[in-house]
């Protein structure tokens, strides 16, 4: 007699037990970007910190305009401005302790400077006298990264290594909305979550990947929602509200440091300038759209908060602007000096030790340089002219 001949006697074996690996509910971002400035909650904020951030924002804005001006004077090869995004840049730098690491993208020169990097050294890549102009270990700022999102796995690896060594170090990695489409974004978030690495991912959603708007980049409810798929919390924050970004990042850093794993933060902001000085933004967006964001300017937002609460007066505003002008003047002056170049550097750091082939090529270049030197006027001849 078969099973089929015994109606009701067949009991299928139940499949192995299944349950979700993580409760997704607590990982979900808020429905609206988190805001502090202009809300009642702002009253409880550390006023010293707000003043410090204000100074950084004013100087940051001036840094952006000065760097953009330097491209017109041929002193910078290119500058991807973060005008309009200064709140994210400043908050990222200030959310970290000295021992922590920052992993900036090419648009995040300002975050590196806000972390203490020399403004001229930070611009080496964009001036073009070398690639990375600073020792990353000095301020724990990884090289400004040009290939999109490829620095994110580095941040994960570094944070993982620090934890393996027993060090209390957090890595904060910065990426743009376009970068979230890259495979490395996915792999980095997945590795970070699986390893519970002390990493914070800050996505500056500035609306555009050069010319392509976010709608053509993703169908996700928000970029912060992507976190849920990796099993980490996603936070959505107003990227022009420096107090809110700072608070969200500080909380994510604290969480990472406590061993609770990574966080993905999406800061909603806007790229006021074109992609770089070489880009023409009028081809893909309207002035009216830009104006709506100018009305939500990160520097103005904080300035209104501080002046409204009598924490800053006109003199205070002027003092910060003067400090920013002094910084810009110093930057101008230093950038107007030609960088010292040594063509032989081309061979110095390719390997720990030069290969025979590189020794041969270095000798060739040396001979070319020497020969060129022979044809230039000697000191006496030159002095006569």
């Amino acid at each position: 007699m078969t099973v089929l001949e015994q109606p009701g006697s067949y009991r299928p074996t139940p499949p192995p037990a299944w349950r979700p690996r993580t409760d997704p509910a607590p990982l979900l971002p808020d429905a609206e970007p988190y805001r502090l400035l202009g809300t009642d909650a702002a009253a409880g904020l550390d006023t010293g910190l707000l003043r410090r951030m204000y100074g950084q924002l004013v100087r940051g804005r001036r840094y952006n305009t000065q760097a953009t001006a330097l491209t017109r004077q041929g002193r910078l090869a290119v500058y991807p401005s973060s005008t309009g995004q200064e709140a994210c840049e400043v908050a990222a730098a200030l959310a970290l302790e000295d021992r922590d690491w920052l992993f900036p993208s090419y648009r995040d020169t300002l975050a590196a400077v806000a972390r203490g990097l020399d403004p001229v050294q930070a611009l080496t890549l964009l001036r073009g006298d070398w690639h990375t102009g600073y020792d990353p270990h000095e301020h724990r700022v990884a090289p400004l990264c040009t290939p999109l999102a490829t620095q994110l796995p580095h941040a994960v690896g570094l944070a993982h290594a620090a934890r393996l060594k027993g060090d209390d170090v957090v890595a904060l990695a910065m990426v743009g909305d376009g970068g979230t489409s890259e495979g490395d974004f996915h792999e980095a978030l997945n590795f970070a979550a699986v390893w519970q690495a002390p990493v914070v991912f800050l996505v500056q959603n500035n609306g555009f990947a050069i010319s392509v708007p976010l709608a053509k980049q993703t169908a996700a409810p928000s970029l912060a929602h992507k976190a849920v798929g990796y099993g980490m919390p996603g936070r959505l924050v107003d990227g022009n509200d420096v107090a809110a970004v700072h608070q969200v990042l500080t909380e994510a850093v604290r969480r990472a440091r406590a061993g609770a794993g990574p966080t993905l933060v999406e800061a909603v902001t806007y790229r006021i300038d074109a992609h770089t000085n070489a880009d023409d933004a009028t081809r893909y967006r309207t002035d009216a759209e830009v104006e709506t964001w100018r009305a939500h300017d990160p520097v103005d937002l904080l300035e209104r908060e501080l002046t409204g609460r009598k924490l800053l007066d006109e003199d205070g505003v002027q003092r910060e602007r003067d400090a920013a002008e002094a910084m810009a003047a110093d930057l101008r002056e230093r950038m107007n000096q030609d960088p010292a170049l040594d063509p032989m550097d081309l061979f110095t750091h390719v390997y720990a030790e030069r290969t025979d082939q590189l020794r041969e090529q270095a000798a060739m270049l040396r001979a070319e340089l020497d020969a060129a030197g022979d044809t230039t006027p000697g000191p006496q001849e030159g002095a006569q002219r």
Partner: protein
Amino acid sequence: MTTAAVTTGRKPATMAQALGRALRDAMADDPSVHVLGEDVGALGGVFRVTDGLAKEFGEDRCTDTPLAEAGILGAAVGMAMYGLRPVVEMQFDAFAYPAFEQLVSHVARMRNRTRGAMPMPITVRVPYGGGIGGVEHHSDSSEIYYMATPGLHVVAPATVADAYGLLRAAIASDDPVVFLEPKRLYWSKADWDPARPEEVPGIGRAAVRRRGTSATLITYGPSVPVCMEAAEAARSEGWDLEVIDLRSLVPFDEETVCASVRRTGRAVVVHEATGFGGPGGEIAARVTERCFHHLEAPVLRVTGFDIPYPPPMLEQHHLPGVDRVLDAVARLQWESEWTAPSGGSGGPAGVNDVKDVKDAVKGFDEFEGGVR
């Protein structure tokens, strides 16, 4: 203790075992050495090279990662930034391609980018090459991609002793090393003492595997045994072939190669990788540039065809074998007058309709100035 007792530590070991021992010893000697990759933990890697490492050193030192090669190598970059010495296993040659951007854009450039502030002491182990009956994507010879990337060292062992010695050297190197492990030599054996591994030359030195006077076979990795066999077979044809095992493609040991070719006056480069734009072109060009007046014949190449790697049931037609090597040797202008083989100049050496080897040997016998 007799001398014999001292040498009894030498017993047959496979290349895979020697590689595993190198990893183990490196991890034991240096706590900053970390192994990471797919299936390297409990499984011991698909080729069992990492067998036992997770058990001995813990999962923090030998880590099964998520299945994502760019993520593995990208994480290794960050680990190296923090002072660790990662050894990454790519499961197969073709599965290393997703990590290519990390390798080319970051691993290879980081030292130079940061003026030496951030060296990348990363070893990327890549099981490579064909001849194991692998289905598509399991048999590529990808060395040319790595060779064409300044900042990387590219190493390929061919012997058990070199597998150990070169892997130790790669891990100890402060530069990134792409370590190509010839899959079909994984189970090749040699007498070897794991407790007393013999000293081998470092990265960047070639080895003369067989001394000879008639012509030089320049090769590496899985083609070394092929060339050794060809050299043995050539004896009966009257040729005394020298065989050079490059061991390291970058740095390239021009000195050893050119010294040999200047003595023999003839050279054939042998590798599995495709010929057009392959390593052999670079090697032939270098040898020609530096040894022109010593050459009795053009430097020839015996390579894989310029085709996507074939399916396993056809791969024997693609891989350079002993006959093809001997055919190429036969074409090294042993006669006083050189005639181009029929069928045009295209295609890897030995593939065209060349003279029968015996005819060539006859020509060799008749050519008085044949041996330098």
